[in-house]
């Protein structure tokens, strides 16, 4: 067991080493000094309160998307539609805020506009998620395919929206909506930064997910992923599971749409989703489907993006997109660790009882550093014992 632990640490260490080597090589290749680059990275993240705020601002949408994806991924429902759901949520939130504001003669108070934005965003994202859920349940359309394609549909719809019914009357270089009424904007949490109250929402959702993890519903989803008949016995039918999990992720993504408009940009932009939907999936997996892991991973992703900008300005030659490469290497590494842990014999781990240290327990893949009790990574679950003999 100790040797297994050591192997896991070795694996993790080699992933970290690989990231450093790749990053260093790329910086050298771009003709810069890696140390200067590193310094720029650190400064980009921490040199001023504003920069710290930017890291938080970036982590909020990724975190919410990832947290609300937990049920779907736990059940083995692979929805990659967060991008599209964010877009639709942003559109409905913006539209609703303008409409209600008009109803109040342009002077609607915040207590009205905030909930209106939140609810409209959630409704838009949720509706956008129910469509692929319906297709999956009714005609068994693969949800990966349908959500991916619907992302394009949503992007097209956004472009059309920004040129027609939500277009700003002013002359602007890029298509965008008019600025949201002042009262609709999310106030800053830390003065002098863009860090807004949405941060608290992440914490609330993380706590809710943490509590939900211990619920019967969570167990049913885990069973659903690998034991379809047993799941039926527990009442987790396919339609119930697909609808509920996709809806939760859609609601989360829709709220993110609202937050990006009301908290960050003050208006609806073409770039409202900006890859956050995909980062969310990566962060959910990186965080091992555990709330704490996800919050940390979201912060890390966001810091990487902010730091890369710092690196770009410090070195002058290294493009900020180096962050994407690093994320990619990291994800491959995490996938390797997860695959390694699928091996049942490899995951012998004590469980928190008194004589825990010598209790042999084989658990399914558990990412390093998470402390949940029966957290499982998607799809791996029970295959431990039942490799391939899937019913």
């Amino acid at each position, binding site marked *: 067991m100790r040797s297994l632990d050591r192997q896991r640490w070795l694996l993790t260490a080699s992933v970290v080493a690989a990231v450093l080597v790749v990053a260093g090589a790329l910086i050298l290749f771009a003709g810069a000094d890696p140390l200067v680059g590193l310094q720029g990275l650190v400064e980009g993240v921490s040199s001023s309160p504003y920069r710290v705020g930017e890291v938080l601002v970036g982590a909020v949408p990724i975190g919410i998307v990832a947290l609300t994806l937990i049920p779907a991924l736990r059940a083995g429902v692979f929805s990659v539609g967060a991008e599209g759901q964010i877009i639709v949520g942003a559109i409905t939130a913006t539209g609703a805020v303008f409409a209600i504001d008009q109803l109040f003669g342009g002077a609607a108070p915040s207590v009205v506009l905030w909930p209106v934005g939140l609810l409209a965003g959630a409704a838009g994202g949720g509706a956008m998620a129910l469509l692929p859920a319906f297709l999956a349940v009714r005609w068994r359309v693969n949800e990966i395919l349908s959500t991916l394609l619907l992302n394009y549909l949503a992007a097209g719809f956004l472009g059309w929206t920004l040129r027609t019914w939500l277009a700003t009357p002013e002359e602007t270089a890029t298509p965008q909506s008019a600025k949201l009424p002042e009262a609709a904007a999310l106030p800053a949490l830390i003065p002098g930064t863009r860090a807004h109250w949405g941060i608290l929402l992440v914490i609330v959702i993380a706590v809710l997910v943490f509590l939900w993890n211990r619920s*019967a519903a969570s167990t049913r989803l885990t069973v659903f992923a690998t034991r379809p008949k047993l799941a039926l*016995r527990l*009442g987790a039918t396919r339609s119930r599971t697909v609808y509920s999990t996709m809806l939760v992720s859609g609601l989360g993504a829709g709220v993110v749409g609202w937050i990006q408009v009301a908290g960050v940009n003050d208006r609806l932009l073409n770039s409202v989703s900006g890859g956050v939907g995909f980062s969310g999936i990566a962060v959910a997996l990186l965080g091992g489907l555990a709330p704490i892991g996800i919050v940390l991973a979201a912060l890390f992703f966001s810091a990487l993006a902010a730091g890369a900008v710092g690196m770009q300005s410090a070195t002058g030659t290294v493009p900020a997109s180096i962050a994407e490469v690093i994320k990619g290497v990291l994800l491959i590494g995490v996938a390797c660790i997860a695959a390694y842990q699928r091996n049942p014999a490899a995951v012998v781990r004590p469980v928190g009882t008194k004589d825990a240290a010598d209790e042999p327990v084989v658990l399914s893949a558990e990412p390093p550093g998470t402390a949940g009790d029966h957290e499982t990574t998607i799809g791996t679950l029970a295959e431990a014992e039942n*490799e*391939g*003999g899937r019913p």
Partner: protein
Amino acid sequence: MTVSPQEMDRVVEARSISKSFGPVAALRDVSMVVRPGAVHALVGENGAGKSTLAKVLAGIERPSSGTMTLDGAVYAPRDRSEAKRRGINMVPQQLSLVGELSLVENYLLVGPRRLANRRSARALLAETLSRARVEVDLDVPTASLTQAHRQLGEIVVALAEGAHTLILDEPTASLGPLEVGGLFEHLRALCDLGTAVVLITHRLDEVRQVADDLTVLSHGEGVHNGSAAGLASGEIARLMVGELPPPVARVPRALGGVVLSARGLVAGSTRDTRLDDVDLEVRSGEILGIAGVAGSGQNLLLDVLGGFVEPEQGTVTLDGGAPGASAVALLNAGLAWIPEERSEALVPGLSLRDNLNLYSTAVGAVSTERTLPHITADLQAFDVRPARPELAAAGLSGGNQQKLLAARELGALPEPRAVLAYGPTQGLDQRAAQAIRGRLIDQAAAGAAVVVASHDLEEVLAVADRIVVMFGGRVVADLPAADATTDRIGRAMAGLADDTPPADKDLP
């Protein structure tokens, strides 16, 4: 156990092997010599360490201590593929075929020549199949085969891979007598060519039928090592599990009203023969046996009765409830379920405790979470070993997993009204099998309607009061146990009886 010098080259010898999983000592100082050209039976009660020893030999587990030699040279395989390269292959207790792939593709995946072409692979498998005189579809995804066929398929893939030492972990647990006969003939033929076969089984008649050598394990220690000849079944049984209690006596039970009934069922699935107008009634206190060769529709019938498959026509009612209830509604109405494949009903990553408590997480659950003392009591009542509530189910031996399943379905559920069980004693040693049969009889005595299906006639005959025989998705015979001679049922199972309606008991 003398080994002639020319055979010496392929002798596998294990000396003083020990293996522990944390504090659990699965093997203690076990030695074993596997001779070429002989069938070596490895027997012992559930959890004795048979699978662990087999895995050590096949390179899947590494021993904590002890040495092995092959051909006199050190044999310490790092993994399964190294063992295979050195000619030792194993068919594990838990099947390892990839469900999405056909047998041919599975073979291409693991076979020695990874680039072998599909046509020659198929021909090779087909030839192996015909030598073993069994028929298995080589071209459909293995997930859509019956369990018996998947078991055979896995063996055939291993045979086709070619090994001088082949370890089969309970290959016959899910097979009927027909398939077992063909398989054994083939194994004997292989032995005549010099292959060594290690056969793990709980069926003592099989030991007497094919084994040359015998190793008996008990609580992780080798208690007998030697020739299988000259040992009576009773003696082997005593070595394995000690003195057996006498089988549960048959006491006639008073039958109550109909609890479980099915009318005019028509249903289809990829896994089993289509059901063609099946009627069934099981009364309170009755144990109904459903016999039939594997894939005659018994499995699909249980799936429909359990609410897992919606029939195209016909209805199922439990206890006068609404017809066509969902699986969860049936669970909450008191339907116990032991499927053919225990892996369908257990979650290996969850602890024994969570597995026993699983039904408290059902939608609208009637069963509540049981406290630790209750859980421990359940585990002990069903003799699940080790009875450690926090152990993950994957850490149990195959037979103990089966006991765990029985403990949940027959023990933890608040008084089942009906029991659906397919081969409930699969993989159990004689003592445990007898205990589970006793439980089923107790449930019937307490008023439950019990259905025991199997493609193994003995399993059905051991407990049933009335026996229904299925063939080709239809009920072809319906006899009270007293009239159910092996011969009569055997004929019906082979489809030889004419299509007498179920009610008509005058079979030719």
